[in-house]
């Protein structure tokens, strides 16, 4: 304890050097013009304070965290270790009550949870995020499943846990540090850098001068032997002078200004921060949403590409820029680290504004500073050090140690939930524009698709369809008969989506506004009693407080057919502007000091607001008139758990090649953070794509889990046929390809809904041992079977594709073969981008062109079987009615296909719940036949194909070094097991 204090003091001697550094840092933060509406870390009081603390720590040799666990307070009971956490700088007197409570929970899923909270705060810190984010109370590890290995000579407590006892957690008391080890290898380390900092709630009346004096007295009274031993002990005098950095620790504690806005912060400072080290790991991923690369870039340290930390604060950013860590519409404080040897992840469960610094350990090859570090620490393994800073709430962290990605996704999903199985139509193609002007326009666009023989499933209406931006209403001059309009779409198996935003026009004659006022469900001003109003599309508006249970239920009830006049069963919903976007607010959002239900200040829950809205809307669609139909709701804002309510998209992108390129890393990042149902607006929202960009965007967009074209009000029309040939044919071909692969996509969605897996996957999750792919985000996998490399530059007709692994890859169009591993230049002419099926996989398809996914319901299947080098392959097909919840009662078909030793076997996976639904879908669809088998990678032409006592013909042709064989009508169905042998 004492030595730690001494080291702090020594840090204070470095005043002069640091103030210069500090200035340099400030200069580096100067914003570009476009960014001026949004805060930098230095403009956000708590971020600046915590970052300054990190600066102090980093510039102080032998820095030691002032936090210590009281060893005698530690108790381990039923999987939970508790103890007192003391800040030796603040809790000076032995009589001081231990300020912080520490908890470590071992979970039955092998995950661990670390919580730090104030023990006796002057008012409770907000701890409600778990109530809305965690799906259910989780189970703790049973006492048999972990083992306390006792304390070693340094007072380090070691506990072994996990199903295979593969995990170890080592808890050091002084200084406080927690190491998580997998099979004995340190993987995730908390407070390794000693950046833990915890601002305790306080009363403003406390005169600041006195506080400083107290501190000074404390220091003077100290009889720290270390300080005494320092040469030139009179430096204590200098220490009293606070450095610029130390002054920063006390800036903007209370009222804080940004541009013309004031944040009243009545509770004062309550932020906290902590460092999390991914040991032995060079690449970390996650923490969406940022317009940046998949592998996160360093924000600190020499040569760091970014000077600002990654920020998580849901914001409506007009024409966002690529390659920077600014906050965007959604936030998921989930980070995954990966190396050849280990994979681990953390979930920082906090919905307040959060900033994350990333620092990479210097690589081995450099000299200078590195050699100094080496001499100091002897061995410097690769590591990524992250520093997490949140404005309010409690420190609540989950640590997932895998050991594989799939384990991590499952562990994380078991807490925050998996992707809801979507309506089948919603993974087909969506046509949107701000705006389709009237019913005639809708009819003409709909007819255009039929005329040009391009399939589509959903037509969208943006804000202009309403009566003056009053949601749940129609502009009656333009849409005199919305029901008829939806029915005519529905007759062709198509749906409609209308936009419903969370801002409610202040208008006593508008039923929603009026009812909301009567029920008293609007967000309140900081006084806690008057309704907040601000500006959005309809002008003066109010925002529904979705933290109020009454508000949620009332909101959900708005979607019943008799409330939402002109809505039908085939109408679904789009939730936009739910960050929330407030035109007149600070950073275009709602002030942090407004009040939610239960006297909760908005700053605690900001990043969750959009999700609360999203979930209430999904609830509304689910329960409208008891139709047993799954909801479909698209949201712009998101948080951990959003996947349970619907899809999201990457907001208002731009019709530029840069934004097309950005879409892949953004969607991969969002997907691995638990929200796989996401997409980017095809074509780009702002501006006008030329024919080439639009076509390339469709070719890429068909491999987004959520596939929608959208365009701004001021942009030119760009329905798929408007650019003429050859573009219409190229776009038609792309969209049809999406439709042929819908059975494969739907199966992936089902897997995601059970396992929590991403749907489009970064290369490193499929090839976790190939270091060449760890930073790769310009190509990716759909499931584990299909490799996609979008073309994201103009006039590019050759693409450099990386074929990972030692197996073959088959072009999905002409079945030409490539052999991994390595890069190869591949033709990517205007009508195709490189897309390959990986050897060893079976992909189910429906190849008949149809006008909508609904129209494909009774179509037979094709299986594309890509044999690996030992002649094996596997795949699966999931099918249900695509719209109801009957699958929960077991009414689905899940068939596993496997090829081994020249036999294709099909086995229906029994559902765990018995079917109790009348006119069972599974029974009917079980008769759907497989009309065609395409076998790729056969070393010799197939001669004899038999199913039971029937002999079938295979027609084979040589492509590259192997054969492509097609078997017509094997007369098998997806509902009955079969074995088909070929030789």
């Amino acid at each position: 304890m004492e030595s730690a204090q001494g080291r702090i003091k020594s840090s204070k001697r470095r005043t002069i050097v640091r103030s210069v550094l500090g200035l340099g840092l400030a200069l580096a933060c100067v914003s570009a013009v476009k960014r001026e509406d949004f805060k930098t870390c230095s403009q956000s009081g708590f971020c600046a304070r915590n970052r300054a603390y990190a600066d102090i720590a980093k510039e102080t040799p032998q820095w030691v965290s002032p936090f210590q666990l009281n060893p005698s307070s530690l108790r381990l009971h039923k999987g939970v270790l508790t103890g007192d956490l003391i800040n030796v700088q603040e809790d000076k007197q032995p009589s001081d009550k231990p300020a912080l409570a520490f908890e470590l929970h071992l979970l039955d899923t092998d995950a661990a949870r670390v919580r730090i909270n104030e023990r006796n705060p002057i008012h409770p810190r907000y701890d409600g995020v778990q109530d809305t984010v965690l799906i259910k109370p989780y189970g703790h590890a049973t006492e048999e499943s972990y083992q306390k290995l006792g304390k070693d000579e340094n007072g380090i407590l070691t506990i072994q846990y996990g199903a295979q006892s593969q995990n170890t957690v080592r808890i050091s008391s002084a200084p406080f540090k927690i190491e998580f080890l997998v099979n004995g290898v340190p993987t995730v380390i908390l407070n390794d850098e000693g950046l833990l900092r915890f601002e305790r709630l306080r009363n403003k009346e406390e005169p600041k001068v006195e506080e400083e004096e107290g501190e000074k007295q404390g220091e003077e009274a100290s009889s720290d032997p270390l300080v005494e031993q320092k040469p030139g002990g009179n430096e204590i005098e200098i220490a009293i002078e606070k450095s610029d950095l130390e002054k920063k620790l006390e800036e903007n504690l209370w009222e804080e200004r940004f541009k013309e806005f004031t944040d009243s912060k009545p509770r004062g400072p309550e932020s906290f921060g902590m460092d999390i080290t991914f040991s032995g790991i060079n690449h970390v991923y996650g923490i969406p949403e940022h317009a940046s690369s998949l592998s996160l870039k360093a924000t600190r340290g020499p040569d760091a590409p970014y000077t600002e930390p990654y920020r998580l604060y849901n914001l409506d950013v007009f024409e966002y820029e690529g390659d920077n860590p600014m906050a965007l519409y959604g936030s998921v404080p989930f980070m995954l680290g990966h190396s050849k040897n280990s994979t681990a992840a953390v979930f920082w469960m906090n919905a307040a504004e959060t900033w994350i610094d990333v620092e990479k350990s210097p690589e081995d090859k450099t000299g200078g500073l590195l050699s100094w570090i080496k001499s100091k620490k002897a061995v410097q393994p690769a590591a990524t050090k992250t520093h997490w800073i949140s404005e309010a709430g409690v420190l609540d962290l989950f640590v997932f140690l895998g050991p594989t990605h799939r384990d991590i996704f499952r562990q994380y999903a078991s807490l925050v939930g998996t992707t809801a199985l979507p309506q089948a139509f919603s993974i087909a193609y969506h046509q949107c524009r701000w705006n389709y002007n009237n019913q005639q326009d809708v009819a003409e666009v709909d007819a255009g698709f039929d005329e040009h023989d391009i399939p589509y499933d959903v037509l969208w209406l943006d804000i202009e369809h309403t009566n003056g931006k009053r949601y749940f209403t129609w502009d009656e001059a333009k849409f005199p008969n919305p029901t008829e309009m939806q029915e005519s779409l529905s007759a062709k198996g198509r749906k409609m989506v209308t936009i419903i935003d969370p801002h409610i026009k202040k208008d006593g004659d508008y039923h929603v506004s009026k009812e909301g006022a009567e029920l008293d469900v609007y967000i309140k001003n900081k006084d806690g009693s008057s309704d907040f109003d601000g500006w959005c599309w309809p002008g003066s508006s109010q925002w529904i407080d979705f933290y109020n249970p009454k508000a949620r239920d009332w909101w959900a009830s708005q979607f019943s057919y008799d409330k939402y006049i002109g809505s039908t069963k085939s109408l679904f919903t789009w939730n936009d502007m739910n960050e929330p976007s407030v035109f007149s607010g600070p950073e275009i959002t709602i002030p942090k000091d407004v009040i939610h239900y239960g006297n909760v200040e908005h700053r605690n829950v900001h990043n969750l607001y959009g999700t609360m809205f999203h979930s209430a809307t999904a609830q509304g669609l689910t329960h409208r008139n008891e139709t047993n139909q799954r909801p479909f709701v698209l949201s712009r804002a998101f948080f951990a758990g959003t996947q349970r309510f619907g899809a999201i998209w990457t907001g208002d992108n731009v019709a530029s090649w840069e934004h097309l390129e950005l879409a892949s890393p953004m969607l991969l990042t969002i997907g691995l953070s638990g929200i796989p149902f996401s997409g980017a607006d095809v074509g780009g929202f702002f501006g006008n794509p030329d024919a080439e960009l639009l076509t390339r965007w469709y070719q890429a967009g068909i491999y987004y889990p959520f596939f929608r074209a959208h365009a701004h009000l001021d942009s030119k029309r760009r329905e798929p046929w408007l650019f003429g040939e050859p573009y219409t044919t190229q776009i038609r071909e792309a969209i049809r390809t999406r439709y042929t692969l819908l059975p494969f996509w739907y199966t992936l969605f089902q897997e995601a809904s059970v396992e929590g897996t991403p749907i489009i996957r970064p290369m490193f999750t499929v090839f976790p041992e190939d270091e060449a792919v760890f930073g790769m985000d310009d190509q990716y996998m759909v499931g584990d079977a299909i490799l996609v490399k979008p073309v994201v530059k103009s006039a590019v007709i050759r693409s450099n594709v990386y074929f990972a692994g030692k197996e073959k890859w088959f072009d999905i169009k002409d079945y030409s073969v490539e052999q991994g591993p390595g890069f190869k230049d591949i033709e990517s002419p205007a009508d195709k981008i490189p897309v390959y099926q990986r050897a060893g996989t079976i992909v189910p398809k429906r190849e008949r062109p149809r006008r909508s996914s609904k129209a494909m319901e009774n179509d037979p299947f094709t299986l594309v079987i890509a044999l690996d080098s030992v002649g094996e392959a596997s795949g699966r097909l999931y099918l249900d009615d695509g719209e109801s919840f009957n699958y929960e009662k077991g009414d689905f078909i899940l068939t596993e296909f496997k090829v081994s030793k020249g036999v294709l076997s099909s086995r229906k996976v029994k559902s765990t719940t018995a079917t109790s639904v009348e006119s069972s879908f599974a029974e009917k669809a079980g008769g759907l036949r497989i009309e065609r088998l395409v076998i790729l990678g056969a070393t010799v032409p197939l001669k004899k194909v038999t199913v039971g006592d029937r002999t079938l013909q295979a027609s084979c042709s040589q492509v590259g070094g192997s054969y492509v064989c097609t078997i017509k009508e094997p007369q098998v169905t997806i509902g009955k097991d079969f074995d088909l042998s070929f030789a």
Partner: protein
Amino acid sequence: MKTHSVCLPILATLALSAAVTRANVNINNAARGVSPSNAKLYVPDSVNNWSCLDGSKTIPFSAVNDDYCDCIDGSDEPGTSACGTGQFYCANIGHTPSNIKTSRVNDGVCDEECCDGSDEYDGQTHCPNVCEEVGAKAREENDRIQSIQNEGARLRRGFIKHGKANKVSLTNELETLRDQVDQVQLALNDARAKLDAANEEQGAYLEGSKSEREATRRQQLEPLIQEQTKRLKYAIEVRDMLKITLQNLKEKHNKNFHDMAVKGTVSGFDDYIVAQGEKTEVVEDDLASLASDRQFDALVDETSVVLRDIGTLHDLLDGMKRDYNTEYNDEAVLAAVKVTDDFEITWDSSKLDFADVEHLVLPEELPVDSPEAEKFRDATDLAQAAFNEASDKENKIQEGIRDIERKLNMDFGPDETFSQLVDKCFDFKDTEYTYSVCLFGDANQSSHSSTHLGKFSGWEGDNYDVQMYTGGTKCWNGPERSVKLVMSCGTTTEIVSVTEPEKCEYLFKLQTPAVCPIPEGEGEADEQEQDQERQQDQQQEEEGEEHTRKHDEL
């Protein structure tokens, strides 16, 4: 499970599902979806095989319509969706037969084009045969359209006749006018020579007293020049004040409010600045060196330029002042509105309100009074009058020629149909605006003020039924407005709808006899028989024309 047992249960299941149709298809179903005219293509060869229509492959005849796509061209599956690329023939007895895409066969949708429901035969979706009903309606509709087309064709023949006749008469007229050109030009040249001579003589006489006259003249004009200089300076000050106001507005307004009125003004200001960059400001010192008359004229010109600028800038501000969203309380906008208010008050009350105060007019130079001078002056006046008269005559003829040439150069279609419609104007009112177009002229949109949507720029395509009007007023952040005018057959000429499919690009739908199809074979041959009828039409058309001529007054 043993593999051989698979077959039967499957067939049993098939009976329950879509796949059942497959089993049935082979039985005499080769002809399904094949039109009678194509039936001869779907017969087996001598060994009961069949070749894909593109000749690419030979398959057993039993593979035709077996619900599996064998042929690359899709020709083996005219009756199923297996290939999805061919045509499925619906007999539609009671209505007219049609071909639908085979991708629509058994897709669960009762296609309107296939009223007999024969496209949905798999038992999943029942599509009733509604051909009788649909057919009856269609026949009724057909009759209606036919009668419109007949009447339209009759009217169009009138248009054509009128157009052709008009072309002939214009050509004749042009010839007559051209014949006169030489003559009037000779007369004009003669008059010009005489005028030049008179001027020269007078000039020579006056040259002698030039500097004295300039001195006298300057004395006479000096107060006016000073007054005008003052006015110009004041105007420049006011204009610069408005520019600064707009510049501030542009830089400081809150872009997140998306206030269209503010955006419009800022974008208008940007356009102004761009246009301004091309002009050069007149420097006062340069003016001082000019002769007093020219100096005064230059000052007046420059003042009017600045006044126009003030007008433009004020319009921008005033436009915003009227429409901006008062509830945003955007400080930059409020400041600009305040300046606009102040400007309007001071500008109105100012003595220098150029709009109300009379323009300074250059007084006549005092005549030089001597009999000799008078003689020269009279001679010049006379020569001037003669020249003016000759010039007027020449202009009129040239103008007549140009007008005829314009009309002759216009593309009224191969048969001159549209000659009848040139410069005819039509209105269309919707809830917000009145749209108008004068064919081959301009299109406009008006409510309280008028916006130019474009000027006729040509036909689109080769069918003479789509016109483009381009180069209209620029949208604040979009393109120049334009109109696509699409014509359809009708017995009257009128606009039937106006829409704005994308911002500032309008679609006018116009019905007119001018595009009604004239049945083949009815052309020149029966012109005689219908001559009388046409004369009547001609009369009607002329009445119609009068009606449209009155358009401006309406």
